[in-house]
């Protein structure tokens, strides 16, 4: 059990009585939940956390998820038939599946993030789903360069930065517009999720640090909040079980512990026993370089993800931290794992039998 807030899940009654009980309940009874995108770190953690709460859990993603106790359904969001089959018989959905990245044509992002979400919402409604948790990102509302203690603003598909954020913004807007008494919808925006098994942030940081190729931008002073993966998964469960007044809105989820980027990177490096970066590059130089690299990669898509983009440079050199009060109040959730505990768990994982070094 990862949730520490003491909510109770009752055993599901059967038949018509169950429906009546569902209608009347303020507490949440066991749901039949679909978790999409369970192949990534957060998706796997979420599926596991949902299952651990006693909900019947099915996952849906292109590859195998292999989460113990979770029914594995494979398929693509862009395959309407697969989506319908996945959602059949479900009462709740946690939708994590998305195309994530910083480069590539926007149409590819749109197909998965916008059209895929639209198809899933329609199928869910048809299947009688009552609760739909849309997993989004703080970047959907982020049009400037820094975030200093802001709350979750409205998604802005025109001005959000980059194809991922723009398409997620559009998806979040129409998902929230679907919120109705029959099917409640809310959006959760976890920020900078990391933890054991993280193939994006942690692995990227460590592989560069090992090669001595991880610079600090402007000394790494920018205050950045992040989310330890178990806290994010916990927040998904809290969202799924959210009280009636929480629905129809978007919530940023973080650890609520902003730290200078340098401290965050150092925490990860130390967990892995890798030297902590000490050399600094002016952020303006990095942003400039990012722009050049972006342009080169755009011309040669076959090269894959570029090593540094303007967007990444900005993320690592400007403040990103949030007002979490509304999130805590509405979702009845607070993070249970501190940053330092998270670093300790990461270290234990990297030292453990499954450590990839």
């Amino acid at each position, binding site marked *: 059990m990862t949730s520490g807030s003491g909510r109770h899940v009752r055993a599901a009654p059967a038949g018509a009585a169950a429906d009546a009980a569902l209608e009347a309940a303020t507490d949440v009874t066991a749901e039949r939940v679909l978790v999409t995108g369970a192949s990534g770190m957060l998706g796997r953690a979420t599926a596991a956390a949902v299952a651990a709460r006693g909900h019947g859990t099915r996952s849906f993603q292109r590859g195998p998820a292999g989460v113990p106790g979770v029914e594995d359904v494979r398929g693509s969001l862009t395959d309407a038939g697969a989506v319908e089959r996945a959602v059949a018989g479900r009462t709740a959905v946690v939708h994590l599946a998305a195309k994530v990245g910083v480069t590539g044509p926007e149409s590819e992002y749109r197909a998965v993030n916008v059209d895929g979400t639209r198809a899933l919402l329609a199928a869910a409604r048809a299947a009688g789903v009552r609760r739909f948790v849309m997993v989004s990102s703080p970047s959907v509302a982020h049009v400037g*360069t*820094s975030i*200093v*203690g*802001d709350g979750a603003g409205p998604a802005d598909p025109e001005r959000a930065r980059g194809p991922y954020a723009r398409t997620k913004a559009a998806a979040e807007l129409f998902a929230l517009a679907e919120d109705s008494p029959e099917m409640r919808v809310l959006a959760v925006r976890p920020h900078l999720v990391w933890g054991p098994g993280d193939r994006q942030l942690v692995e990227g940081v460590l592989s560069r640090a090992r090669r001595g190729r991880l610079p600090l931008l*402007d*000394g*790494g*002073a*920018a*205050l950045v909040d992040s989310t330890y993966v178990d806290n994010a998964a916990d927040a998904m469960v809290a969202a799924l079980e959210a009280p009636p007044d929480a629905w129809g809105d978007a919530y940023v989820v973080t650890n*609520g*512990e*902003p*730290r*200078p980027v*340098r*401290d965050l990177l*150092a925490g990860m490096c130390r967990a892995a026993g890798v030297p*902590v970066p000490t050399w600094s590059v*002016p*952020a303006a130089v990095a942003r400039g370089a990012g722009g050049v690299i972006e342009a080169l990669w755009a011309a040669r898509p076959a090269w894959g993800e570029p090593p540094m983009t303007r967007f990444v440079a900005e993320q690592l*050199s*400007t*403040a990103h*931290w*949030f*007002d*979490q*009060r509304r999130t805590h109040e509405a979702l009845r959730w607070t993070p249970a794992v501190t940053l330092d505990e998270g670093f300790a768990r990461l270290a234990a994982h990297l030292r453990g039998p499954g450590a990839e070094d």
Partner: protein
Amino acid sequence: MTPGPTPGPHAVTLPAQLPPPGLPGLDPGWSRLVEVPRPDRDGTSPAGPGAVDTWHLLDNAADVAGPVRGTLLCVHGNPTWSYLWRDLLRAGAAAGWRVVAVDQLGMGFSARTGRVHRLADRIADLGALTDTLGLTGAVVTVGHDWGGPVSLGWAVAHPELLAGVVLTNTAVYQPLDARTPAPLRLAMAPGVLGASTVTTPAFLETTLAIAHPPLARDVREAFRAPYRSAERRVAVGDFVADIPVDAAHPSRPALEDLAASVRRLRVPTLLLWGPRDPVFVERFLADLLDRLPHADVHRFEGAGHLLPEDADVASAVVAWLNDRLDERLDDRPAGPLDERPDDRSTGDPAGRAADGAAVGEPRDGTRDGTRDGDRDGHQAAPAYRPLWRVLEERAGDGGVALVEMAPAGRGPRSISWSLLARRVDELARGLHASGVRPGDRVSLLVPPGADLTATMYACLRLGAVVVVADAGLGLPGLSRAVRGARPDVVVGIPRALAAARALGWSSRRVLAGHLPPAARAALGVECDLVELAARGRAARATDPDPLPTPGPDDDAAILFTSGSTGPAKGVAYTHARMSAMARAVGAAYDLGPRSGLVAAFAPFALLGPAIGATCVSPDMDVTSPRTLTATALADAVAAIDAGVVFASPAALTSVVADAGSLDDTGRAALTGVRVFLSAGAPVPPELLEAAGRLMPNAEPHTPYGMTEVLPVTDISLAGIRAAGEGEGVCVGLPVAGARLAISALDDDGAATGPPAGTPGVTGEVLVSAPHVMERYDRLWLTHRAARRDAGWHRTGDVGHLDAEGRLWVEGRLAHVLTTPAGVLTPVGVERRVERLEGVGRAAAVGVGPRGVQQLVVVVETVPAARRPALADLELTERVRAAVDVPVAAVLVVDVLPTDVRHNSKVERTRLARWAERALTGGRIGRP
């Protein structure tokens, strides 16, 4: 200059109209057109009987919920219109006040009448309008700019209706000998008047352009709305031309009459002022105060001519109406002209403990410093003893009163009590013979020493109010402070008089020191102190009777706060309160007629003669406490066998650092000290310990207090050790006569709790004592906020009381952090960090929006960091481990920004802004 407007396009008549819709902040429902029979003042009204003028006015009557408490009659100036009062219409309605804001005839959206409206006409026109409206009951006039005289004219003509007067940046008198303000002089120059006011909108544009901060574009457009064409601006030019700048002007008699009549007004009066006004400069405020001495005054530092745009005038007026008018409305006497307000300050002027204070009064009396057990401190306080009483008593005493260790490069100079008493008498008579009167303000820009002491006591004896602005405010701060206090006379050393001249202070100038005649003439020096004393001797020869003495409730001095939390504030002390301060200092440190004290801390040094103690000022640059050496201190102690030493923490730090240079004589001299105290800012116990090693027989003390009340508490080094570590800095028990209470903080970090003495509750520190200042000077709103609990003064510091009744200071109210986990005070965090190896001073500040602030610790390292940066990981982790709340980041700086005066109060507000920038991204600059 040609009197009156030149005949021009006056034939222009245009009907009144309603303002266009959509003007920001203006409710179209307020607008009314009112037809008013034209007053026929002298039987020459061109249109004859039956003629009407149509006014546009704003009236919020429909919005007032509940019973109407009265009417505010608002009169705009030139070239604005009733739009200026939109916020007041809204705020007034919510507070139960009907607000009628008129557009004067020819102005705003009222009719263009084709006539010239002189001052007398405008007053009569306004009377005709209020007759038509049938205004009854309590009316408070509100005037801005040249609407001021018109509103005052109405006020003196309607005593049966008048309940109060509010004036903002205006004048009722244009002295013939004084310079017309330059911008106006230019506007009135022949050929310029018509062009600048009517044919082009230059005058309007200039007025709109001087708002601080600049007006929003749509607001600017709203002000322009009624003045779009030259024919709509005719009255703008007439209005300027109607300013009676010379004796022959047709409006001169009306203005002279009015200026005299205003002196008879006794109704509650509020003067709100924006000092950054190029036209209505401070001297007009002084003139108004001279005519309306009972007025409440608030100067909005930083605001200018368009005061209702620059500052929250609406809230100020409503607050003032609540305080000053409500109790009067029920039983208003018939003739308000004879009514004399009986008190001048908000709340309880005597500082008596009122009903609400009882909760702050613990049953066991532990928080009550009154040693005789008297609960009400003030009433039963020792009888008032004038500050100059000792000088009178010791006029024949040849003993030493003052010693200056290094007067202008010479050896020590001693002044006996009899010489000091004689000098004070001569200077007081000299000032009096020069026309300085009781209540006049005299700014003393003289370094501590015999001249300052003698001049100060001369002023006190005469009843002139001493304005003590010290160089510690920095030149801009000092200039702002002195300007705001508006002294009639400046007594200063050459450097200070040069600054006074350069900064354009209009005061008379008296020189302290010597200058060649040419330099004196250049600085506008009237006389020097030697000549002033000679003048006094001559006056005494012809009239040996003593000068009349000021009363205990007359103002004695204006001091200034250090401005570490905003612009320096003037603090007014009456004779009784200053005398109580001398008594409190004397009692706290057992100082009396046989004591000798070394004063390296100016405020207390000035009290020496009042206490009867012999004072010695050490050889140091008083503007820089760090220049005090150990030897200079020892020499000063030796000069009078001083038992008591006062020094600021910075001076003491310097002495400790210099201890190695002491010779045996010096060390021996310092063993004679029995008490030393350091004040002015929090004093680290380590510093007291180090200084204690230099003065082994002395008990180290540190008083706690502020310019508004000093001392509040006192603690010895032994007391600090006994208190141990806690949340904040322990400053000890209240001194005799002082009582403490705490107003608890709420979740937003505001001190909203009632005064209470519950141990362990953190909140704003409240003090009640006979030596609390009388009031903030010309800062009515500030004073009101500080005195909102009857009988208590709010200090702006936060802290808590412990079970023994000791006060622990946790920081400034303005520096309290509001984090997601609750409010957090800075000093406890700072103390924990400062105990770490390799850390000097530390500051705890919040970054981010209130309510979600993150704690950032900024430290001075030992050795100092080369430049501001993120602290290294090792230090960061030690800080996080030392502090029991989450620390988002640790920054290092070479030196923390501090106030100029004490060089020790960390400017956390400025530091917080810097830290937020540093942690947002980009290169880290200097704080």
